[in-house]
């Protein structure tokens, strides 16, 4: 059953995309910055993990190291790029352009060091298949789905049950009030960038296990993820995740009727429809 | 029976759980200076936003000269003859005082690229006329000496006068002024009050949000007292100001 296989594949891809979406959503909802360079962290994570694994580091350690470095990278970006821009009262446009510049820098450093060709991950266990009826999944796919769902659950728990999570949500809903009630938004932003960057390193490492690494491959998933975030309602973690799965499913199912290279067209088309009819998304938080 | 000049009825506006305007309704008569007073948070700026199309009310309607304003965009409402100033001025800081006024003058040649590129001489000639018009408006508010100065170099009082010049430029007959006298020194205050009376003499109708009771007493023909999003009282300035119950609400105690 090709359709069912596509649905299953779509679910896995959607889960990974969902993690990208919720991590981006965390940043956007809190700092209001459209952090395009997030795609750079996503890409970097994969390459870092590959480097560690190529030097004999055990797989799990490589993943954790990549995540840790990703968190540091995110914090550094906030501290050394976004915070100074905020201090200089940079306009939204200026911050966007700076973020875009950073993305270009990150992608091209990777391309210069690792070449622009696709790099494969040396993980032999990854391509072993698991079968359920006529549906087949690689171990990588299974792992991706499980860990992504775990990340989603973890983020929900963090946002709603921890003090830092609540502080973040407070700042997100009213930065002005947060400033004058001494919630220290700037400090919160560093946490947000660090945590969100750490989260996005998960799909950043897992997705290339099957698809391979590419320096410029981060922008498309990021774009799809932001569409999911907007369609699901900015500020809604569940909305972002659910819409990511939905978009991935639609992209996969569309393979039944159109060639693969046009699947981004589908995503974009969906987005335009949403923009025209429901710009506030499906699950916008009531204020 | 003439339709009321400006009429708001049954306006409801809620922001989340906060009811900013509750069954708010009032009329404004032509040619009068009506002051809108009330404690902070009473909904005065909100009702301005509703009348001028910046905010869609949850329910209720506004009509001007018998025609409904419901659902109109801000630009259309200016075309209909109503213009407003902002409490926080919102002047174009990087433009000169003159340019701030010229921008607000209605339909000029060269406001779209095709005309600008293919009819430059016509545009230049029109611009000369418009700048003259703008100078006259600046003179009317007393700012002609500061025409070529950038807004950031004007004093606060001068900036306030400029906001009035800007609404005058639109040609609107009903002017909604949001705290035109607040934060001004005594001299600037007198200048503003004199200007408002001149505008009335010119045939303009003014709806003015004002906190300063001296200003209200001196220039208002009618006073509308707004409280908790609802019209609580209306009448002549002397009545409203001397009413102890209203003073209680406004000041939290007798004057």
């Amino acid at each position, binding site marked *: 059953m090709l359709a069912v296989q596509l649905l299953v594949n779509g679910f896995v891809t959607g889960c990974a995309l969902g993690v990208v979406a919720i991590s981006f959503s965390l940043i956007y909802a809190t700092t209001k910055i459209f952090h395009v360079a997030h795609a750079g962290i996503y890409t970097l994570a994969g390459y870092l993990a590959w480097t560690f694994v190529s030097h004999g580091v055990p797989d799990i350690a490589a993943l954790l190291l990549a995540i840790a470095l990703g968190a540091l990278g995110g914090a550094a970006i906030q501290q050394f790029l976004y915070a100074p821009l905020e201090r200089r009262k940079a306009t939204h446009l200026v911050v966007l352009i*700076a973020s875009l510049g950073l993305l270009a820098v990150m992608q091209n450093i990777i391309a210069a060091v690792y070449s622009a060709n696709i790099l494969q991950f040396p993980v032999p266990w990854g391509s072993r298949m698991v079968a359920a009826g006529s549906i087949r999944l690689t171990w990588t796919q299974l792992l991706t789905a499980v860990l992504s769902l775990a990340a989603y659950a973890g983020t929900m728990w963090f946002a709603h049950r921890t003090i830092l999570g609540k502080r973040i949500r407070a700042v997100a809903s009213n930065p002005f009030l947060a400033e004058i009630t001494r919630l220290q938004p700037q400090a919160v932003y560093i946490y947000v960038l660090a945590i969100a960057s750490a989260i996005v390193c998960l799909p950043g490492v897992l997705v290339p296990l099957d698809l391979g690494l590419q320096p410029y491959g981060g922008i498309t998933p990021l774009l799809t993820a932001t569409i999911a975030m907007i369609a699901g309602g900015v500020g809604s973690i569940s909305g972002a995740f659910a819409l990511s799965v939905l978009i991935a499913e639609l992209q996969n199912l569309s393979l039944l009727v159109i060639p693969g290279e046009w699947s981004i067209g589908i995503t974009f088309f969906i987005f335009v429809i949403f923009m025209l009819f429901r710009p506030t998304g499906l699950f916008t938080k009531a204020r | 029976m003439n339709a009321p000049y400006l009429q708001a009825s049954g306006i409801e506006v809620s922001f989340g759980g906060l009811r900013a305007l509750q069954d708010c309704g009032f009329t404004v008569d032509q040619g009068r200076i009506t002051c809108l007073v009330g404690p902070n948070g009473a909904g005065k700026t909100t009702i301005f936003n509703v009348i001028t199309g910046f905010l869609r009310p949850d329910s209720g309607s506004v009509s001007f000269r018998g025609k409904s304003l419901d659902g109109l965009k801000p*630009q259309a409402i200016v075309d209909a003859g109503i213009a407003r100033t902002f409490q926080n001025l919102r002047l174009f800081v990087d433009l000169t005082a003159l340019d701030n006024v010229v*921008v*607000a003058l209605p339909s000029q040649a060269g406001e779209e690229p095709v005309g600008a590129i293919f009819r430059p001489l016509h545009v230049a000639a029109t611009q000369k006329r418009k700048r003259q018009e703008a100078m006259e408006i600046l003179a009317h508010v007393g700012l002609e000496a500061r025409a070529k100065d950038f807004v950031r170099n004007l004093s606060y009082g001068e900036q306030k006068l400029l906001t009035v010049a800007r609404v005058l430029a639109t040609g609107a007959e009903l002017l909604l002024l949001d705290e035109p006298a607040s934060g001004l020194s005594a001299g600037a205050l007198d200048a503003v009050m004199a200007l408002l009376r001149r505008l009335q003499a010119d045939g303009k109708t003014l709806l003015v949000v004002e906190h300063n009771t001296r200003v209200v007493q001196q220039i208002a023909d009618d006073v509308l007292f707004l409280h908790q999003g609802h019209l609580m009282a209306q009448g002549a300035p002397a009545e409203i100001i001397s009413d102890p119950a209203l003073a209680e609400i406004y000041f939290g105690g007798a004057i």
Partner: protein
Amino acid sequence: MDFLFSYIALAEIYVLLSLSTNLLVGIAGIFSVSQAAVFGVGAYIVAWFLMNNVLGFVPAFLIAAAGCVVLNILLTLPALRVSGDYFVVTSFGIQLLATAVFTNWTTGTGGANGLPGIPPPDLFGKALESTGQIVTLCSAAMVLSCVAFWLVMRAPFGRMLRAIREDELAVAAAGKNVLRAKVSAAALAGAFAGIAGGLYATFLSFVDPTSFDLDASILMLTMVVVGGARTLTGSIIGPFLLLALPQILTLIEIPTTIAAAARQLLYGVLLIAFMLFRPQGLAGEKL
């Protein structure tokens, strides 16, 4: 000598693109990474008309310009009805979608191999074949465009756009149609991009998707950022400077495998540096 002519012609074409980007990003404040897509559409339209001997240069040129005007209007109109950040996503999406079309629609655009052998431009029946003649054509186009830009910025339209950049609400409160002004700016930007595309196609006599991808859009942004936003001078300095950079880079003996990445890396660094330390560029106004 031919080499110098090439540099000048290319720089002049990019001046048109800078004017276009400046109108959209610098003046109307719309973040755009899809300028290259519109540039590409203009180029492919002229290429198609000339190669299939359907129309002469001038009519093909005018159709391309008109087509790009319409394209820009269609692209910005729905997105302008919603918040600026949603347009960021739209802009990325348009650019990626365009690259997908340019690369995969083999019948129309020649696909990844592009369209070689585009005939030189002909004016009043006479073909302009020497580089010198084409440079003259490009120079004329550049001068005319600069004059048009200057006229537009001096006119009430330019003043209104400047006011809109400062405070849209106040402009609306003054009775002006903000949406129409922004869309007009986008339309004009489209015209400039389309004209640039036509010149590019006939100048190079070959077009392929790599000239019109996201990296190209980033280059255009960099030209505006470095040259300076919103001014005519900035729009001229930016391209001439940025196009001279690759030549300077060759002096540093970077291996050809990473030359492209090195260039893009440099653009990214320039974007970040200027946004942090000199947002007004060399000869512009603060973004």
